[in-house]
Each structure stands twice: as structure tokens, then as C-alpha cells.
């Protein structure tokens, strides 16, 4: 029986006729006005990014000693950091985007943490996304609640890029989603049959209706050529790649990320597209083989850098109206651990990029790395509430009222005050 290779070989799978048929079958999405022309991208860095080796405090006299072999060399030394302001430097794997800092389109904020103070990835990510003070206590994410407040139309302003909708975008307000596929698309006739097959099954029929809608919108925004290229391009998002061996040189397992960034950029750039997009970047849980200029962290940063470059390119002119926020659930221990890595910590760095940030400086209150200044004697001390960063962006960039940010979007967050100097808004 010929059941092998269920994935059919590359071929022109969605000709003009197929796309036209699909469009004809469905009512075209209502093209209501978007509540904003600003763009916002959230990249969730899952796994706890080591802020101390990304935005490197090379000017802190305790840094090199704490980090030992993991310390990033000073600017000017071999494999050294790119200097930012005479105290902080950027990891060398981010050298492609380092020039953005000079042009004012890159803004690191240091010693940032969400209110979460334990060290579980899963709870930490939950709280990062649900916007409350405790994990697992709500089914909606802060960005979905923000979308509800922006409201104004039936149009789907939020977009999840990737196989699942992350918690931060889940909730009562409907969002669009998109993921690359590598299989011929079902034709309109078959989809109509499946639609009626699912009549008695609410869950499946709802997911299908949304899926058909999403496919249609994505085709319009991305153009068939690009989609075809993705489909035939052989990118396997879920296939682990990279080299065997425990981290030296670091594997490059996240090729799929760049595609997600490019798709997000293209759809956000579309006049009728979404305005807010979320996708994940992985590979930050560097318990071992973290490396300095090379290693697992450098590998993850390479992917991130490629994603950002690709995002900027695909956004085109919309880049000037864009803010990208890169946030992680918590940081990593100030000391290197015994295994060439770092363990779960507390404060870390957040990165903002885009034409609408007021970059070219490092924000935050540096707590120092002296033994007595570390949180619980082991982690970078949090001095800036990550929610304050998020709230400031939502207020100044997307125009949400502060009162709602304090109560609905981030409940009980009135202590997290606006931060001056994040956005380019005067």
C-alpha cells in the first residue's frame, strides 16, 4: 500500500483557480478600519534568556569574575561585545543589529522582571502572558484584553504566528493565526464537505471556520508566490537540526523562526492586515554549553538576529511605525553554574526595536553585581517591572487608556508606573 511519504512532493499546489474558488466561496473579510496604524510585535523568548550575556555589563567590576569562562569579552578584545554606552555592550552574535542602536531603533532595558519570583519556566511564562500576579489563574492573555479595549471593529487586529495561539493572545477577542504548511491545501469543494461533516461538532466546526478564514486572509496578504515558496522550501519547523554534541559550537535549531518573522512582517505591512503580531523564539535555557561568543546562547541570538533583520525588511515602510518587544519569563543566575551554563534566575534584559522606539540608550536602574546586591544572593536584582514596559508601549504607542491598563490589562498593577523615554512619541 502506498501510504509512505504522505507529504506529497513539491508541485504547484494552489493554482490561481484554487485560490479564486476559495475566495469566491467565502464572504470576503469585512475590511473595517483598524483602530491604529501603529504596529506592535511581541517576541516571546521562551526558556529564560540570560540578559547578562546579551546586554553585557562589561563595565561592572564583578561581571567578569562571576561569569568566568562564560564572560563576554570587553569591546575591542577578540570576540568582544559591541559597545553601547561605555558600560554595557551587546553580545557579538547580535552584531548585525547593533547598528540599529546608533540609529535609535534599538533600546535595551536592564534588570527587568515580571512579578513572578519563583523559577519554573512554565509558571513564569504563564504569568508573563496572563498579565496577572499569579500563574494559571486566567484563560486570557494581556494582549487579548488590550485588543478588546482597542476594539472598534470586527477586523482581527491580533495575529498569532506559529502552530498554536500563545496564551498572551488567547481570550474572548478573536485573533488571526498563521503557520507555514508543507502540504497541498484542500480545495474549496472538500472544505465545504468537511464543514458540513462538522455540523454536529462545535469545537471542530469553529476551528475549521476560523482556519478557512485565516488561510484566505493569509493568501491575500502574502501572495501565492511567497506561500508556494514556503511550502516547497523544505523548511521543517519541527525537525531538530544542528549538530550533535553538547553545545560547541552551538546548534542552530530554530531555522523556522526566520520564516515566522518574515510572515509576520508581510502581514503587518499589508494595509488590510493585522496590527499586532506574536511569535516565539526558543533556545534560551542554557544550563550547559552556554558558551561566550560561541555556544548555545550565541546560536539562539543568531536566530533572533536573523528574525529581526527579516522582520524589518518585510515590514518595509511600516517599520517606522513599529515597536518590537522581546521579553522572556525570567533571567539566569549571576554566577556561572558548574556545567558551563547558568541556572534559572530572576531579572534579565528586555529588548525593544523598531522605528517607533526611542533607542540608542540603555534604560533601567543598574543594581550592580556585587554579592550583596544580588537577589537572594544569586540573581540579578529586579529594578524595573516588565509590566511597566508593556504598559508604556500600550499607552504611548497603541493609545490605550492608563486606567484600563492598571486594572483590566494588567490587574492590580498600579505600582508599575509609566517609564519615560521608551517610545519616540514626544
Amino acid at each position: 500500500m502506498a501510504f509512505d511519504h504522505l507529504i506529497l512532493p513539491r508541485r504547484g499546489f494552489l493554482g490561481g483557480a484554487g485560490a479564486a474558488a476559495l475566495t469566491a466561496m467565502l464572504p470576503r473579510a469585512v475590511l473595517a478600519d483598524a483602530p491604529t496604524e501603529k504596529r506592535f510585535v511581541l517576541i516571546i523568548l521562551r526558556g529564560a534568556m540570560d540578559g547578562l550575556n546579551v546586554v553585557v555589563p562589561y563595565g561592572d567590576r564583578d561581571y567578569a569574575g562571576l561569569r568566568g569562562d562564560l564572560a563576554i569579552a570587553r569591546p575591542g578584545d577578540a570576540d568582544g561585545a559591541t559597545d553601547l554606552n561605555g558600560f554595557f555592550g551587546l553580545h557579538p552574535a547580535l552584531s548585525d543589529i547593533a547598528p540599529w542602536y546608533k540609529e535609535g531603533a534599538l533600546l535595551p532595558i536592564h534588570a527587568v522582571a515580571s512579578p513572578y519570583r519563583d523559577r519554573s519556566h512554565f509558571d513564569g511564562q504563564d504569568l508573563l502572558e496572563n498579565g496577572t500576579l499569579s500563574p494559571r489563574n486566567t484563560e486570557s492573555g494581556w494582549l487579548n484584553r488590550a485588543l478588546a479595549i482597542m476594539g472598534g471593529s470586527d477586523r482581527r487586529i491580533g495575529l498569532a504566528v506559529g502552530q498554536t495561539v500563545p496564551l498572551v493572545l488567547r481570550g474572548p477577542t478573536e485573533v488571526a493565526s498563521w503557520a507555514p504548511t508543507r502540504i497541498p491545501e484542500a480545495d474549496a469543494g472538500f472544505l465545504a464537505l468537511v464543514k458540513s461533516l462538522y455540523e454536529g461538532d462545535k469545537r471542530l466546526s469553529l476551528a475549521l471556520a476560523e482556519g478557512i478564514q485565516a488561510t484566505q486572509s493569509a493568501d491575500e496578504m502574502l501572495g501565492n508566490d511567497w506561500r508556494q515558496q514556503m511550502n516547497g522550501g523544505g523548511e521543517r519547523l519541527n525537525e531538530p537540526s544542528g549538530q550533535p554534541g553538547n553545545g560547541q559550537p552551538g546548534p542552530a535549531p530554530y531555522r523556522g523562526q526566520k520564516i515566522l518573522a518574515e510572515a509576520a512582517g508581510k502581514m503587518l505591512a499589508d494595509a488590510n492586515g493585522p496590527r499586532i503580531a506574536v511569535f516565539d523564539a526558543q533556545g534560551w535555557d542554557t544550563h550547559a554549553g552556554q558558551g561566550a561568543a560561541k555556544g548555545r546562547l550565541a546560536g539562539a541570538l543568531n536566530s533572533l538576529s536573523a528574525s529581526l533583520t527579516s522582520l524589518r525588511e518585510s515590514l518595509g515602510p511600516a517599520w517606522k511605525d513599529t515597536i518590537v518587544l522581546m521579553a522572556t519569563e525570567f533571567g539566569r543566575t549571576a554566577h556561572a553554574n558548574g556545567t558551563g551554563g547558568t541556572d534559572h534566575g530572576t531579572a534579565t534584559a528586555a529588548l525593544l526595536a523598531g522605528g517607533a522606539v526611542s533607542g540608542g540608550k540603555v534604560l533601567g536602574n543598574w543594581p550592580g553585581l556585587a554579592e550583596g546586591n544580588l537577589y537572594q544572593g544569586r540573581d540579578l536584582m529586579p529594578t524595573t517591572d516588565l509590566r511597566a514596559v508593556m504598559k508604556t508601549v500600550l499607552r504611548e504607542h497603541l493609545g490605550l487608556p492608563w486606567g484600563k491598563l492598571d486594572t483590566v490589562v494588567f490587574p492590580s498593577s498600579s505600582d508599575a508606573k509609566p517609564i519615560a523615554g521608551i517610545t519616540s512619541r514626544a
Partner: protein
Amino acid sequence: MLDLKAAAIAANRFGFGAKRGELAAIAPDPRGWLKEQLSLPVQERVAIESPARLAEFLRAQRERKADVDLAKMFQKELRENFRGEAGGRTLAAAASPAPFRERLVQFWSNHFTVSVQRPVVLPVALGFENEAIRPHVLGHFRDMLLAVAQHPAMLLYLDNAQSIGPGSIPGRLRDKGINENLAREIMELHTIGVDGGYSQADVTEFAKILTGWSINRDNDPNPGTFRYRPMIHEPGDKTLLGRSYKEGGMTEGVAALDDLAARPATARHLAVKLCRHFVADDPPAEAVDALTRTYLNTGGDLRAVSMALIDLPTIWSNPLSKIKTPNDLVTSAYRIFGIEGDRFRDGALAGLQLMGQPPFAAPSPAGWPDIADAWMSPEAMMTRVQWALAAGQKLDGHADAREIAKSAIEPVASENTMRHIDNAPSPAEALALLIASPEFQRR
């Protein structure tokens, strides 16, 4: 009396669906069919392959430093070999004579996730499942926990192999220290759960207890096997969760794992996960309570716990409450259509990759999610439909949709589903609609 509906539930909910003719065989005694699978010998015999595979990997790691071409060749071979094993695992599960037991293997394997996102896991992922999980699925949880914590795959995946007691001689001389990754995940994910009442201090103490749990390296005797290294064990007494452990080398860790396995929080954590997997995304409280009680009353006897699962009334009352994960969907398609043989391995793996759940590739130590929300995004739904269509086209001429629908889903199928299959415009679409149908997508 023949109970075809209960037979369909037994086959779908506990297994990977019914092969042709299987429902009729199960129908006289569906519960008995399941219990019989649990009456097989507790200890399944398995070949121990991980040490040799890992030794080869470690040797290649050393040699590749000198020879880049050799390294590339080895990597390619390693990856191809893994892909074959991953696809083969799915086909083996689909063909299993004891599918409930196989589901339990996969459940526990996911509970104790090792993932090839860390390339060192590639040569030993399948070995981990066969050596640390499979022999214990009908044994005691504490034995599985110990086997897991001493398996090289887990020791490498969660970095404990390199964890060094800071107070040990190498720790002091080389200023090396502990790695708390394994200790944290054993408590958070494998035993008492994140609400189990532990603190950062407990994580650190447990990590100290586990220092020295390592592997034999390339230049050691018996490379690739577990090895306790007293030299790097953190000396001194430790306190974990209020209990003190006298300095005792490796015995500290064994005792701590036993104590964790015996905790009520562990019983409940495991009961919730089992009920979520087999019963419903939001597990009913009485089902969780029943399994928790059985676990505690039997000292963590997993055969007794699995028997208790069969005896839950709720499991037999709502036949289609769970949406299949991609893993269950693909495996059940291969079983229901009777697709067997090594040449189908690539196809099985391709389906799993397409829908985002290839074996041994979970994104984190928490393993694959087990609720519909995680697998039912609009995008994922489209992918399922596309896969169903592609599968229907491939199966066209090799299978009859009506016949398979009758033998696999009819006792629990809606009239609407059967009518769609009957009235499909082509045989390929009939097959595709069968695969896409709610009764095939759910269990």
C-alpha cells in the same frame, strides 16, 4: 452480550483504535480485553542499547574534533537513524497486540520527557523509553523514577551528568558547582508538581543530593552507562522538604526519590495527568480522587492505578470527549487502516512532523501538552484536514471507506458522519472524510 459501543470506547480511548474485525473480538468483554493487557508479565524484556549508542556518540564527538568530514558523516547517519527509529516507534505502537499498554508507555515517556532538541539525546531517545519507561509501566512508580533519574539520556538532557558539588574536592579546586536543572524538574514535573510545596532552597538541596549521578564518559570503562561519582558528590547532610538526609553518597538520592514518590502530592499530580490523558481535558474530581487513593493505598503500584482507570465509570460514559493529539491521530490511522511495514516509517514521521508532534521532540521538559486547546488552533485544524485529504488520496484503491467506517467508528458515530462517508463524491474523498470525521479525530 455484545457491547459494540463499549468495545469502541475500549479500542479508541485506551488504545489506538480498532483494526479490521477487532471490535467484534473486543465486544464480548471490553473491560476484560483491557485488563488482560495489564496481566502480561510486569517486566517487559527489552534490549539495553543506549550505552553502546551513547559510547559511539561520545567517541565520535572526540574524533570529530580532528576530522570534519567524518563528523559530518556521523551526524547525517545519526539523524537518519533517529528518523527511522521515530517512524518505527509509531508503526510499532499502531501494530501492538496490547495497545492500552503501549499508550501507557507513551504516556509515561511523555511524562518523563527527554527531547532531541538537545542533540545528545538523538542516539538514546528510543533507548530511554525502552529501558527506563517500558519495563516499569506496570510496576511501581518509584522504580520508574529511579530508572529515569539514572538513565544517561535524562542525566544528559537535564544536565545532571555534569553537576558538581561545590564543596567536593573538584568543586573547590576548579571553582565548579551544581546544576539544578534535573532536581527542579523532578519535583516540578515528575513528582510533587509545581504546587507541591517546595522552595528554591529545596531545589538547591535536592541538586546537591543528586551530585555525582553521572555517566561514564568516552575514556572511562563502560562508556555510556550510569555512574555514581563520589568524588564530585557534595559532602555533608542535606535537608529536602523538611526531611534530613544523612551524608550517604548515592543512597541519599535513592532515598529522596523514594520519599518523593510516596508523597500524596505526587499521587495527585500523577492522577490528574492520567485522568487528563484518558478521560477529559478538565478531569472530573471523583476520577482524580479514585486514582489518587489507589496510588496511595498500593504504594504507587502503576498496574493497580491503570486497573483503577478501567474501573472509572466516567470513562465509559462520554465516548468522544478527548480530541486526539497528532501522535494519537497518526498512530490510530496506521492501526485502523492496517498499514504495517518498515517502508512506511518515513510517511508516519512526516505526518507527525507536519502536525507538529514528532516523537521525542517536545519543546520542553514538560513534554507535549495533553489538552485540545494546544492542538486545535485554526491553523492546526486546517493542517489536519489537509493531512486527511492527502492520506485519503494515498489510500485510494487500497481501502474501502465504508467498510473501515463500519469496523472502526460506527458504534459511536453520528448519522451525519456515516452519511457523509456514504455520499462522498469519490472513494478518495470518502476515505479523507472518514479520517477527518469527529469520530476519527476524537477518542
